[in-house]
Structure formats: structure tokens, C-alpha cells
């Protein structure tokens, strides 16, 4: 009895002894972490906020000096009234929301079938469907195709292009998830006489919520910030926030207006930033869950 007591006590006694030297180093780590963040993130972010708060003359050459007078809100107001920010904001929503809803619905429908059916056909369809994760979209010929379809420069065309690009991601995520859902849950509904549509809408879709949340975040992130594909498909026809930023920053009119460019950058980053701050725990666990298995 006494031997077991010392047996359990011994490691406990040695454990603090072993960790002691590390505990002495403890204050170093938080200092290093904060210092790295201040240098690597703090400098660029400060440059943005400080410059966005200056007037045109002071912001002509962006530097790290604090503005002599903080005019951040005035510059926000100027961006709102001069630029086409509001229409660009709604343009971004106009292409993002239907594309995200579309890929989630069509992607989960396909993924349910692909996750449940065996056989060579569904394996081949699955391989084809997820190849888009790796393969780059054919950005030039898609413009030609949209012209032939009469969709060039339209929101519908852009939504189609985004859906074609990101369906692969949804099919990949959701098919893996569907395979973890027990068959019995579907069977129970089927015994009650539910057809496939009902089973999908009532049983499967609610269960997919966590994986669809992750996919939504990822795809919103891509589409909200996309400028490359938007330049080809709807450039000059529909404004989105990144398209507008590109025009603003490359136009002669704004060439020397760093304070307005940075004010614009802050404003356009805010929606995603606020979403992230509110839901960071879920976002981070969602993004990392699939990657390290």
C-alpha cells in the first residue's frame, strides 16, 4: 500500500521538477508572440488605419506617422459618396448569394447520391466532379461560352461560373460527410413512406448543417474577394467590391488618393471581419477539421 502511494507520488514530484526550467522561460513566449504579431501584422495594419485617417496631402506618401488630425469617418463618408460603394456592395451580394445557395443545394444533392451509391459509375462521376478542386477554370473560353449563351456580363453568367468552380469543393466535403451518416436514419423515414426528395430534405439536409456551414464560409470567402474571374466575366458591367477597388486604385482619378483606397479597403473587409470575429471558433474548427486527417 505504501509502495503504491510512493509509486504515484514519485512521478508527481518529478513532473514539476522537470517542467521547472520551462516555467522560468514562460514570460519569454508571450513577449515573443506579441512582438512577432506587432511587427508582422501591426505595421501593415497600422499603415492602413493611419493612412485611411489622413487627408489627401498627408496621405500622398503613406508612412507610419500618426495623422495630425483623425479623419477616418470623414474618409469613410467620402468613399461612400464619391465611389460606387453601395452599388458595388449589392453587386457583390447579387453574385455571391445565389452562387453559394446554388452550390450548396446542387452539391449536397449530388453528394448524397455519390456517398450512398457504390459502383464504378458513381466513382467515375465523383472523380470527375471533384477534379475541379485542382484544375484551374478556363477563364478565357468561359467568356466565349457565356456570349454564345447570351449570358455575357450578366449576374446569372457570373453565378454560373462561380457554381462551376466551387461545386467540386462542396461535393468533396459533403460526400465525405454523407458517408458518416448512418443508413438507419434514412431507413426510418422510408419506412414511414417518405420518397427520396422527402428523405433528402427532411433527414439528410438538416444533418449536413455543420459541413454546409464550413463550405459556406470557404466559398463566401473566395467569391467575396474574387477579382480575377469577375474581371473577365462582369468587368465593366456589374460592380462588385473588389472590382470597384481595382478600378478605383488603377484609375488616374484616384492615383494619389491612398487615404481613400485604404478607407475603402477597411470598409470592404468589415463584413467578413465581423462575421469572423463573431463566429471564429466555428470557422476555425470547421476549416481545420478536414485537413489533417
Amino acid at each position, binding site marked *: 500500500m505504501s509502495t503504491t502511494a510512493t509509486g504515484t507520488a514519485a512521478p508527481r514530484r518529478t513532473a514539476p521538477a*522537470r517542467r521547472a526550467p520551462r516555467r522560468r522561460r514562460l514570460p519569454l*513566449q*508571450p513577449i*515573443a*508572440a506579441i512582438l*512577432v*504579431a506587432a511587427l*508582422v*501584422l501591426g*505595421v*501593415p*495594419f497600422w*499603415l*492602413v488605419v493611419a493612412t485611411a485617417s489622413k487627408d489627401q496631402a498627408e496621405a500622398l*506618401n*503613406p508612412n*507610419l506617422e500618426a495623422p495630425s488630425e483623425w479623419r477616418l469617418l470623414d474618409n469613410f463618408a467620402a468613399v461612400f459618396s464619391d465611389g460606387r460603394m453601395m452599388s458595388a456592395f449589392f453587386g457583390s451580394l447579387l453574385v455571391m448569394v445565389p452562387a453559394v445557395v*446554388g452550390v450548396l443545394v*446542387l*452539391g449536397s*444533392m*449530388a453528394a448524397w447520391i*455519390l456517398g*450512398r451509391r457504390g459502383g464504378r459509375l458513381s466513382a467515375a462521376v465523383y472523380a*470527375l*466532379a471533384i477534379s475541379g478542386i*485542382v*484544375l*484551374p*477554370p*478556363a477563364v*478565357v*473560353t*468561359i467568356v466565349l*461560352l457565356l456570349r454564345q449563351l447570351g449570358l455575357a456580363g450578366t449576374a446569372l453568367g457570373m453565378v*454560373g*461560373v462561380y457554381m*462551376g*468552380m466551387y*461545386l*467540386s469543393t462542396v461535393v468533396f466535403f459533403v460526400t465525405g460527410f454523407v458517408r458518416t451518416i448512418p443508413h438507419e436514419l434514412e431507413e426510418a423515414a*422510408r419506412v414511414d413512406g417518405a420518397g*427520396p426528395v422527402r428523405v433528402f430534405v427532411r433527414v439528410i439536409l438538416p444533418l449536413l448543417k455543420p459541413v454546409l456551414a464550413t463550405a459556406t464560409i470557404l466559398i463566401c470567402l473566395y467569391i467575396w*474577394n474574387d*477579382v*480575377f474571374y469577375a*474581371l*473577365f466575366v462582369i468587368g465593366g458591367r456589374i460592380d462588385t*467590391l*473588389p472590382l470597384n*477597388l481595382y478600378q478605383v486604385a488603377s484609375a488616374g482619378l484616384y492615383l494619389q488618393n*491612398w487615404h481613400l483606397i485604404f478607407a475603402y*479597403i477597411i470598409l470592404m*473587409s468589415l463584413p*467578413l*471581419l465581423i462575421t469572423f470575429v463573431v463566429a471564429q471558433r466555428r470557422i476555425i474548427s470547421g*476549416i*481545420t477539421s478536414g*485537413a*489533417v486527417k
Partner: protein
Amino acid sequence: MSTNLTLAKARPRQQDHPLWFLVPALVVLVVFFFVPTLFNFVYAFTDWSSFKSAINFAGIDNFTSLFSNGTLLNSLKVTLVYAVLVALFQNAFGLGLALLLERDTRVNRAVRVAFFIPVIMSALAVGYIFQALLKPDGALNGILGALTGADVAIPWLGDTTWTIVVVAVVHAWKWMGLSMLIYLAGLKTINEDVLEAARLDGANRWTMFRAIRFPLLAPAVTFNVATALLGSMNGFDIVQATTEGGPGGTTELLNIFIFRTFGQGLFAQATTMSLVLFLLVTILAFPVIRFLRKREDVL
């Protein structure tokens, strides 16, 4: 009798998951993804441009002209170098941050969140921020000047040799928060007992990292290297916002070239480069991913 039974069981199984559920997704994929990709293989061999209405077959003229004036090889080289540099930097930064912020303290959690902010920002915006930061009379040279006491005017974005490295660092800066999170998640999966055993064997921190922790991070490395390579081979925003492909075409990625030639109305040439990018990714990505996967099995 037994065949009847299996049939009776099998048939509802098929109907329970009807194939028509696949149709809408496949239609969208075919129309908006696979048909344009097939078009790539057709229109790269035509003289399609904005200067005439007819599109004629032109053989391999686009390839020969892009090859002979050097743009094809230059863009290929730049894209490859950029992809490799980004993969290196993004993983080095991400792993470094993950190791620095590994312990679950309040400060570390806050700093991790801060490092994720660039990931959710627009890449174009990040490019403009660094354009301002890296100007010859910009903030970085200002800091260096204050530290050294001399006037520093390094043209970070105007050097034909080193600018591609600088831009790759900016790209890695934007995405290192994502790599960090993946590495943190990978570090969490490592069994505490394995580390304890190594510690009892007298392994120091570096040995433990090199011999145990890094090998066990193989799945995280696979994901991070693959996403960094794919992301940078398809890169556009950051380079367009910082250098627009300059100086002297030394940062002209395939996508920058495609955008520029498309803007000039030379659609067939842009298509040719788009096909080149497609082939490059196909030829590189699949073997790289297979290699990394195999490495996971060995370890």
C-alpha cells in the same frame, strides 16, 4: 428464392438514391466548367481575336509565336518559381507561427486570431497595402532607415531579380494564418505519450521536433504544400496589385499574361496560355499530391 430476395432488397436501394439527383450539379459542372475547358483545347489553335469577326483555324501558330518571343517560357518559369517560393515561405511561416503559438494561453489564442485576419482579407487589398509599404520612399524603408541611421531607398518592387521573392513573401504573408491553423490542428493530434517517451529518452526540443513531431505532421504538410502550390499557380491578385507583372516581366505569372492579352483583344493567345496553365497544373499537381500522400504512408 434467394435471388428474388436480394433483388427485392437491391431494387429499393437504387430507387432510394435516384440518379436524377446528380443531374443539376452535373449540368452546371459540364456547362460552366468542362465545356470551357474543352474549348481551351480548340480555341488555342485558332486566330480568335477582337479585331475580326470570323474565327479561323490557325494550327500551332499561337504556340510558336509565344514560344519564339520568349513569353511562354518566361511566364512558365515565373509561375513555377513563384509557386515554389510561396510554398516554401507559406509553410515556413505557418509552421513557425504554429510552434510559437502552440500552447493554449489567452495571449496565444488572441494572436492566432489576429494572424487569421489577412486570410479573410481580399488579396487585392493586401497587394495595395504592400505596394504602399514597399515603395522606395515607403514605410519599410523608413523603418530600416530609422534603425540604421542612414537613408534607405531599396526598390523592393522594382528589382528584376528579387522582386519575385518579395511578392512571394507577400503572398505567403496573406495565407500563413491558414497554414498556421492547419499545423496547429496537426500538432494537437500528436499523442502526448509519444512525446513523453521521447522526453524520458533524453531527447531535446530540436531532436523531438525533427525526429517525432515534424514527421507526424505529414498530413498537414501535404495539405499545406498542395494548397500553397495550387493557390500560387493560379495567383493573380497580389501580383497585379503590387507589380502588375513588372519589372520587365519578371513577375508575369500566367494569369497576369492571360489578363493582359485578353485586355488587348488577343483572345486566342490568352486561351493558349490558359491551356498552358491547365496543363501545367495537371502535370504538376497530381504527381505532387500523390508523392506527398505516399510520404504519409511511409512515415
